[in-house]
């Protein structure tokens, strides 16, 4: 809200930083010799590539939570669905190189004694089709789910709980072998993407760059939406939903729009994530994953553009450090983070800084206004 005026330059700075990373990091990884001080090791490229996908996911959540006030505890579902769509493409790319050497069927289907490819696997050998599904499947789920939920005015914690139930239901469903998505083990052992070997350093660097570009597009998209009149309407819905109704808007459609766009963004994030980690399994649907996304956005500052990006990168970097150094303590820390942020830092890092800045501006403006008021233009009611 406070950002409204400063959104412009800040969006562009953020986008520029992300795009610079998209170019410079792969260059530093591939172009510089190993012993060069600015060389970026390959594992770091892979690591931060994942974090960038998380950042996009957090941004997607921020669009619905920060701007429209819908706390979704099921965004991991959209992420995972996008990931599965990409995973299915990567599975089909394995072809006859799988353990059983079947040119069409993925290994897990052969071991289940399946004879034919299920119909919903058709088309995933084409990259464009997979990309379409990456957008369509999460988008459609978000649309249908949102349509029913928002139309019947399910709000607040009720909505949070049924989004969590949604991802929980999908978790259970994807664990089943006969769903045809690899059951417990999920989809893995990918070989190549668009003909490039998926393990290769250069492919990894390219995926990193692609993730950064996607994030930059995401930031611009969310920036554009939130700066439009629709964005103002979203905040209006967040703060006083019934008021928007009584001036003739339909908040359910506003929410549905945001939820669907957000679902698609999460799906894209998942699709970029899967080739970088090399596996997608039902664990991605677990409610814990979804709720972790919430804390990324909360730490960085919801309702801002930079906040969720920053939060996702920070929290995940912290998680990497802690889980390698003191694995026991990470859940304590994560739990503590939830408590700390909600209790003491409800605006998040970016929000708190902005708020301080805004308070400063407000006092200055009040001082200016005092001078003007001395002239006595309007009867100003006593507070």
């Amino acid at each position, binding site marked *: 809200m406070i950002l409204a005026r400063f959104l412009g330059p800040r969006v562009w700075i953020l986008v520029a930083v992300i795009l610079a990373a998209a170019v410079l990091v792969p260059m530093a990884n591939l172009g510089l010799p190993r012993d060069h001080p600015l060389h970026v090791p390959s594992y770091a490229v892979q690591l931060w590539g994942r974090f960038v996908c998380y950042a996009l996911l957090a941004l997607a959540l921020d669009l619905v939570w920060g701007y429209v006030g819908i706390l979704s505890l099921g965004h991991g579902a959209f992420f995972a669905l996008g990931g599965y769509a990409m995973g299915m493409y990567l599975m089909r790319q394995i072809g006859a190189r799988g353990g059983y050497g079947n040119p069409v069927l993925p290994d897990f289907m052969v071991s289940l004694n399946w004879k034919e490819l299920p119909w919903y696997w058709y088309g995933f050998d084409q990259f464009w089709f997979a990309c379409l599904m990456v957008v369509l499947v999460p988008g459609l789920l978000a649309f249908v789910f949102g349509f029913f939920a928002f139309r019947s005015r399910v709000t607040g914690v009720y909505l949070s709980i049924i989004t969590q139930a949604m991802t929980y239901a999908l978790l259970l469903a994807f664990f089943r072998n006969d769903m045809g998505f690899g059951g417990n083990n999920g989809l893995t052992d990918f070989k190549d993407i668009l003909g490039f070997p998926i393990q290769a350093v250069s492919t990894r660097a390219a995926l990193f760059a692609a993730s950064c570009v996607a994030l930059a597009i995401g930031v611009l998209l969310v920036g554009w939406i939130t700066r439009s009149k629709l964005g103002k309407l979203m*905040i209006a819905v967040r703060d006083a939903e019934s008021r928007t109704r009584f001036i003739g*808007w339909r908040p359910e459609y506003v929410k549905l729009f945001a939820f669907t766009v957000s679902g698609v963004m999460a799906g894209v994030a998942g699709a970029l994530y899967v080739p970088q980690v090399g596996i997608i399994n039902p664990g991605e649907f677990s409610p814990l994953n979804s709720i972790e996304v919430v804390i990324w956005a909360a730490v960085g500052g919801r309702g801002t553009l930079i906040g969720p990006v920053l939060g996702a990168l920070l929290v995940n970097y912290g998680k990497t450090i802690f889980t390698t150094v003191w694995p026991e303590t990470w859940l304590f820390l994560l739990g503590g983070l939830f408590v700390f942020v909600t209790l003491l830092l409800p605006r998040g890092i970016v929000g708190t800084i902005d708020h301080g800045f805004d308070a400063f501006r407000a006092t200055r403006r009040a001082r200016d206004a005092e001078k003007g008021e001395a002239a006595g233009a309007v009867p100003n009611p006593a507070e």
Partner: protein
Amino acid sequence: MVETKVAGKVAGDVHTLTTPQGSGPGKPVRNAAEAAGPRPVEERSRGPGERAVVEPGPAGPQAESSHREPDVSPHPYAALMRERRLAAEAEGRARRDTLLYLSGVTKSFDGFKAINNLSLVIEKGEMRAIIGPNGAGKTTMMDIITGKTRPDRGEVFFNGDVDLTHHDEAAIASMGIGRKFQKPTVFESHTVEDNIRLSLSGPRSVLEALVHRKDEAERERIEAILETTRLTDKRKTFAANLSHGQKQWLEIGMLLAQDPELLLVDEPVAGMTDAETEETARLLREIAATRSVVVVEHDMSFVRALGVKVTCLHEGSVLSEGSLDKVSNDPKVIEVYLGR
């Protein structure tokens, strides 16, 4: 309308007393009574005067009845149906000229009748003040008009023939009914200007809002509303930082931006200073020059300042209606509301 009902009632009653084959000295009288309502002649000439001629009861129309008899459909059920249709048409005519028409509205919550057989008519261009003790059903009435609550029974019509019970809040708002809540409800994270911009009448589609561009006409309308509500120099202020009174004005400004035909204003001056109250009364009178306004208010001096027709609600129905002097001298009103 009342007369029609009485006539129908008589017809029905008489019929139940008579066997279809009944004959003898009583018959003509009965026929006359049965004929009283359903006659085609009646339909054309439903003025109260003419009615009076027909109505005078069993004794009067005896002579007439003998020559009218042949036109009459003898079937009592058809007569009853026609009665109902005529009554409905009469009602339709009666409400056609009104802006807001509530008839027999009832709404109960867990057995508690918040609104009990309430009937209320607001004419086009009228300003009406509604008073009444707490729990009289004022807020529930507004909920029903604006579509937030569906009544259990009764009719709510806007502009004569739009049945409001079939529409939701957004649709009703778009038809031109604006509502101000008891507690000022504005978008606190937005500036005053943005609050009004979001309320401006116009397309309400999500995609339009996404690609919407500000233009000169819009700016002028906002300017005008800011002027009316005395908020011009606060246009860049966040609504959260406004004083209570300014929030109330902003909310009224948002209603104006909607360009409604009817404004429902719930306790606009609660918590205001005297100066603010006076200013608000002026604002409402100014608005009422071009639109209909319904104001719910406890502050009697404010109601007096408005100087309009007053309706006093009590336990979900109209207790008294008329000028403020008439209502405030009504013993029933004094009993339940004003106190002795």
